[in-house]
């Protein structure tokens, strides 16, 4: 069938595609100086040669790179030798401390300088430009080495100290021991220890009552652990602690009670010191006397006490307070995110109309309003919710309300932008078609505009709810309510099990929400 083809242009002939004489791509006006002059100029002042060869940007870039690299290098070298005076002393100290940083950097900087001169020589060659981008690989390599030093990257530390973190991490990963609790009953016995030893009579051995736990120590006097003048540890006297009459085959904790009555669990090699009673309920262990934690000003004869304690659970298991607190705060978090989202939607809808170009294009006044709205939204959006939370806390104090304000402000800005873009991308065709049926203005909005807006609005709103709940878990870190508030407290108390429960709650909630919101959004788009 004969088809009229519009927009038929005559095919371009090959001669049209050529470039006019002397204007091939990559060909620039010739250099002002000869190649050797350019090279020498760049050797004196890096980048000068390139500038002479009419490559000003390239020259400036190389000059800035070199100057910055040298400046950063000088700064880091000074930091490496804080106590030395004089350039040579500082340099040799830095070289001694970090040879793998200083030597490659020096070589690199000199190499960059020479290469810059060579590059200027190449740039000044007539005709096609030579010397590509490989010089910038060296620049990037230099800044990589500097960056490594400045940001104190230390993979060795990461590997070697990972094992120390195993304890806390395992408690975070599997914290459920702290989820339940039980009433406990402590039984124990102790023996007095004199410190330091003197000529006065030693504290008497405790009396053994049959059927009751009994502990005796040998010797009954000694010195506490301490540090010498070089801050090296000096272990205290090793005591042989013998216990009898305890519950058999049970874990027994060793406690230390100082003269003013403070008690603490004895640690050895960083771990709490425990022992296991035998079939008869007896044990015998070596206990090194711990560090003193009474004021150094108190001197003289003091009676400490070593105790062995057994903790036995009695009564029924129940959910721990930690778990209940976490549940409570998790609910608060979800509600916080939800309320912020609802407020955000309510306030963002009217604002989004002001920020939609197609609606505001009518007159200069509305256009000005459009730009004003857009600018304010952009500024608000570029400030993190955490910062908004800090601002809100100043106004309304700590708690979930501050978090709601922070998330609402950010949601308005984010949703306002997304909504207005949804309005801008509306298809005018259906509007025209519905108007043509003789529909009223309101009917047109209802049948042509709303159906087009609802899916993106719903989708964006649910996505925002998802974001807000996720954000509300961290908004607590600064005091904005929610589970983050609890989490940061547990972490500061080094209570990794309770923190672990909070982390688990957050992870599970966010995962569920992620799935649900993705599912709902899929149905609407």
């Amino acid at each position, binding site marked *: 069938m*004969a088809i*009229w083809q519009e927009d038929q242009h005559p095919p371009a002939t090959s001669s049209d595609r050529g470039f006019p004489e002397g204007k091939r791509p990559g060909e620039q006006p010739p250099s002002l100086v000869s190649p050797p002059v350019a090279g020498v100029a760049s050797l004196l002042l890096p980048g000068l040669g390139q500038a002479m060869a009419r490559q000003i940007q390239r020259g400036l870039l190389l000059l800035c790179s070199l100057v910055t690299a040298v400046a950063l290098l000088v700064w880091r070298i000074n930091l490496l030798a804080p106590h030395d005076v004089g350039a040579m002393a500082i340099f040799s100290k830095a070289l001694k401390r970090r040879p793998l940083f200083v030597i490659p950097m020096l070589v690199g900087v000199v190499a960059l300088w020479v290469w810059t001169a060579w590059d200027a020589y190449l740039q000044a060659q007539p005709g096609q430009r030579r010397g590509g981008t490989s010089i910038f690989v060296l620049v990037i390599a230099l800044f990589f080495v500097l960056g490594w030093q400045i940001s104190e990257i230390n993979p060795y530390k990461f590997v070697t100290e990972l094992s120390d973190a195993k304890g806390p991490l395992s408690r975070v990963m599997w914290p459920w021991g702290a989820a339940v609790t039980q009433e406990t009953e402590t039984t124990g016995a102790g023996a007095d220890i004199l410190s330091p030893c003197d000529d006065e009579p030693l504290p008497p051995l405790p009396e053994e009552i049959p059927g009751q736990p009994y502990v005796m120590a040998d010797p009954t006097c000694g010195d506490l652990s301490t540090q010498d003048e070089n801050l090296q540890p000096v272990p205290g006297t090793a005591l042989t602690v013998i216990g009898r009459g305890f519950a058999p085959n049970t874990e027994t904790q060793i406690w230390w009670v100082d003269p003013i009555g403070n008690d603490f669990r004895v640690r050895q090699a960083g771990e709490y010191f425990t022992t296991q009673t035998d079939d008869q309920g007896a044990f015998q262990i070596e206990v090194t006397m711990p560090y003193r934690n009474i004021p150094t000003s108190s001197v003289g004869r003091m009676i400490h006490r070593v105790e062995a304690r057994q903790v036995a659970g009695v009564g029924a298991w129940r959910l721990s307070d930690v778990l209940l607190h976490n549940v409570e705060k998790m609910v608060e978090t979800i509600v916080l995110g939800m309320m912020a989202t609802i407020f955000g939607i309510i306030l963002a809808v009217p604002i989004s109309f002001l920020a939609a170009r197609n609606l505001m294009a009518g007159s200069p006044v509305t256009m000005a309003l459009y730009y004003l709205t857009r600018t304010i939204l952009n500024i608000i959006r570029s400030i993190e919710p955490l910062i908004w939370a800090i601002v809100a806390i100043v106004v309304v104090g700590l708690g979930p309300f501050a978090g709601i304000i922070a998330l609402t402000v950010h949601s308005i800005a984010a949703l306002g932008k997304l909504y207005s873009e949804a309005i801008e991308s509306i298809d005018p065709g259906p509007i025209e078609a519905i108007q043509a049926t003789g529909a009223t203005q309101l009917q047109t909005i209802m*049948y042509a505009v709303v159906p087009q807006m609802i899916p993106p609005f719903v989708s964006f709103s649910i996505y925002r709810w998802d974001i807000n709940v996720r954000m509300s878990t961290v908004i607590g870190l600064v005091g904005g309510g929610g589970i983050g508030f609890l989490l940061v407290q547990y972490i500061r108390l080094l209570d990794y099990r309770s923190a672990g429960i909070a982390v688990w709650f957050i992870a599970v909630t966010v995962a569920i929400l992620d799935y649900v919101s993705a599912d709902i959004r899929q149905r609407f788009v």
Partner: protein
Amino acid sequence: MLEVKNLTKIYDDGTVALRDVSFEVADGDFLIIIGLSGSGKSTLLRCINRLIEPTAGQIVWDEVDITMAEPTQLRETRRQIGMIFQQFNLVKRSTVLTNVLAGRLGYVNPWTSLLRFPAEDREMAMRVLERVGITDQAHKRADELSGGQQQRVGIARALMQEPRIILADEPVASLDPVLAHSILGDLERLNQEEGISILCSLHYLDLVQRYATRVIGLRDGQIVYRGTREDIRRMTDEEFKGIYGVEAERVGGGLEGTVGG
């Protein structure tokens, strides 16, 4: 009977889209407008139901000047004038049924229609869908349908208006040649069986001579050609260039003998 008298449209930026255009569409006409893109075909069609406000001139529909109509009167006139579009202009995320029912908006109570349509309109919608042969698609989303089916939904929506004339703005330009024939065939049937006048803009000259009873050619907003189906078949190269410009070439030589091809 639709009379367009001295219609002129000048856009705000000064573009003259229509200049002193006059013609009439008698009841039962199948009038096709040809012309290049930008010649003013779409503007002309949209001026007739005042989707675009004319700058000057009159549009007389049943002795009433539409250009002077008050909003209520305009809506009553609009509902007698069905319109279909090149891009179908369906609400893509609504169901086919909802799209078809929208054609009834000019008849129903403007307030209750915001929530739901009367039962008889829903029945009518199903009947209309049956007529265009897509009853089984009624509850699908409009964008799940193929192009040809979507244009049938567009026709169904226009039919819901019980129109006396249908304005068709390049109704087959987004469709393949086979579908183009099928859609225009539908329009021809409505024209012949129901006596609905058709005012349609088209690009394909062979379709023009197959379906038109009368033809007008627009160039730069002015009518440069008037003729019947037979006149198109006998169109000279001069007339052709008068419509499409001197650089235009008639693809495939003469048009005679390609009718219905």
